């Protein structure tokens, strides 16, 4: 159609300037988001590659694919790459960077050049990590426990530690940018209580990034110094305490898991009202629960250390606090459900991912409560139960939220629609593959199979084979969107400004948006999630 052709050629952030320099030296938050998209997707497949090797080894009880030391490197690098180079940046650096200014009615983030710096720091860290992996890797586990990492491991601990140190600064700068932007650059009328809950989620995430990341940064500095200079800060044979490392490490790394999940929750909170055609239930509760998770998340770190040698009293305190932190997460689940009650639900691809998120996050979260109970934790800690628990949250939760968000906002980002049938198919494959991979691991862990072991007793083989089969299915589910997103950039249907009939300022501007985001600064005088007044997509299309 003629209008479609004009829309496609209208000047937007993608076609405003061409050439590699215009991308590598951009300060446009939308372009930086795409730079991140390419980078984190690359690292996702690296981390996934390690996962596949792990699952291949675990097809048989004997250690017959790789040597034990190599296996240690595989799970270490899988963890490091996935945590630091995929999960932590993923939604904030891609969807957050793209959407935060748009959602609040601003022209860009507060510090566009710092935004670009944050990407370059990520790339530098990534290159360091890649070099480390290619020249021998690390075998300490992503947790770098001392004194193995500082005194006994023969692998490239220093290089890996420094790579993560640099990536931490990338994370801090992103968080800093978001907090300042959200405080200082909201459009007229965009009060705190009118903000999309995606923004509240990213605000909470940014607080964690700002306050937590520096602690792991300094801890890694101490580890590097200790390893290089043979100090004794964390080495019991030299007067040090290995648990001090663990306290400092987990002080960040526990809140880090909330960095990884909060943005996903924000995504789900945008998707659910849209495809239910209803205002979110309990806006203030959802907003406050994000802040609650961020704050309470800092109070629970030693639940990773219950059997490490902390005092029983400390264990009791941290166990009780860990129960507490489940409450705000539960609040969100109740609110999503209540939103859907008597709503008019469309099972679009984003909504399928949202449903998957809610169910799988629920299971992951509840099993977290199992682990908070000292008695159960003694039995299942360092087994596959824990592995299943955190993969339910990180993969069943965070990654599904990320994919749901990518599908939801793809029309806005690219100006094209992805093929809906393939989208639904991929979502189903991911869901099936995920459950097949990780549900058996709950059972394996409960039965006693330890994590990070390269061999296991033969009675565990069937469940391991199921898990590996699931991983293969899951891989297919992940590759599909890559293929059809790329396809859609050339052949996809041209997207209108608001294909879903969604609320939010980002949908009031064109798809893709112009470089300056809005023709004129929006002035907001309506509440968020104003679905009573937004026509559903079919009506909008007929009217248009």
């Amino acid at each position, binding site marked *: 159609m003629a209008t479609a052709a004009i829309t496609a050629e209208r000047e937007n952030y993608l076609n405003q300037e061409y050439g590699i320099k215009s991308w590598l030296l951009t300060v446009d938050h939308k372009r930086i988001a795409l730079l991140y998209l390419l980078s984190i997707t690359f690292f996702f497949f690296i981390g996934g590659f390690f996962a596949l090797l792990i699952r291949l080894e675990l097809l048989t009880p004997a250690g017959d694919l790789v040597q034990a030391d190599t296996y240690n490197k595989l799970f270490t690098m899988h963890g490091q790459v996935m945590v630091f180079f995929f999960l932590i940046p993923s939604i904030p650096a891609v969807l957050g960077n793209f959407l935060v200014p748009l959602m609040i009615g601003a022209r860009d983030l507060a510090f566009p050049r710092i935004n670009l710096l944050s990407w370059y720091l990520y790339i530098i860290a990534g290159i360091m990590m890649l070099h480390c992996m290619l020249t021998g890797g690390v075998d300490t586990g992503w947790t770098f426990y001392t004194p193995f990492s500082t005194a006994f491991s023969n692998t490239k601990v220093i290089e890996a530690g420094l790579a993560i140190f640099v990536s931490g600064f990338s994370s801090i700068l992103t968080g800093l940018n978001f907090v300042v932007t959200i*405080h200082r650059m909201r459009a007229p009328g965009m009060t705190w209580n009118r903000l999309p809950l995606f923004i509240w989620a990213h605000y909470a995430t940014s*607080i964690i990034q700002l*306050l937590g990341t520096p*602690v792991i940064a300094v801890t890694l500095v101490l580890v590097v110094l200790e390893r290089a200079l043979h100090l004794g800060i964390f080495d019991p044979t030299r007067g040090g305490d290995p*648990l*001090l490392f663990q*306290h400092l490490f987990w*002080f960040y790394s526990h809140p880090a898991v909330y960095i990884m999940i909060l943005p996903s929750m924000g995504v789900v909170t945008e998707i659910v009202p849209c495809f239910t055609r209803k205002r979110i239930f309990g806006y203030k509760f959802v907003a406050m629960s994000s802040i609650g998770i961020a704050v309470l998340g*800092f*109070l629970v*770190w*030693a639940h990773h250390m219950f059997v490490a040698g*902390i*005092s*029983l*009293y*400390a264990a009791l*305190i*941290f166990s009780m606090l860990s129960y507490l932190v489940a409450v705000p997460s539960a609040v969100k689940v109740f609110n999503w459900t209540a939103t859907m009650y008597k709503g008019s639900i469309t099972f679009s691809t984003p909504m399928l991912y949202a449903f998957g998120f809610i169910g799988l996050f629920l299971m992951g979260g509840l099993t977290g409560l199992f682990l908070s109970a000292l008695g159960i934790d003694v039995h299942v800690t360092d087994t596959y139960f824990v592995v299943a628990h955190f993969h339910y949250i990180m993969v069943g939760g965070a990654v599904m939220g990320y994919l749901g968000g990518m599908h939801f906002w793809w029309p806005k980002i690219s100006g094209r629609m992805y093929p809906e049938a393939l989208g639904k198919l991929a979502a189903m494959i991911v869901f099936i593959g995920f459950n097949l991979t990780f549900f058996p691991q709950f059972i394996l862990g409960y039965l006693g199979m330890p994590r990070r072991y390269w061999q296991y007793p033969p009675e565990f083989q069937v469940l391991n084979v199921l898990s590996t089969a699931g991983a293969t299915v899951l891989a297919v589910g992940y590759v599909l969107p890559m293929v059809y997103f790329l396809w859609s950039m050339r052949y996809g249907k041209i997207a209108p400004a608001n294909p879903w009939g969604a609320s939010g300022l980002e949908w009031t501007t064109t798809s893709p948006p112009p470089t300056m985001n809005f023709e004129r600064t929006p002035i907001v005088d309506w509440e968020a999630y104003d679905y009573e007044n937004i026509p559903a997509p079919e009506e909008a299309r007929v009217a248009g």
Partner: protein
Amino acid sequence: MSEHIVPLKTNVAVWLVLLVLTGVTAGVAFIDLGPFNTIVALVIATCKALMVVLIFMHVKYTSERLVKVVVFSALFFLLLLLGLSLADYATRLLV
């Protein structure tokens, strides 16, 4: 941050007090106050830090409540790190 200009006298006074307190800190270290030596030293250090934050860094004069929230949050989370870690270390030998 603000148009308020702190009087020169105030700045110089704070500077002098900071120098005097530095001397006091060093001097008191040689006097035996038992366990209070550490407490006195840290209290004086905190007074000095407060003066730098409130006057040199302008927090006393700012109309931005947000700045005070940021300062308070940083201190709160630092104390959380120190305090909850101590919850482990202080109770290890009890059980």
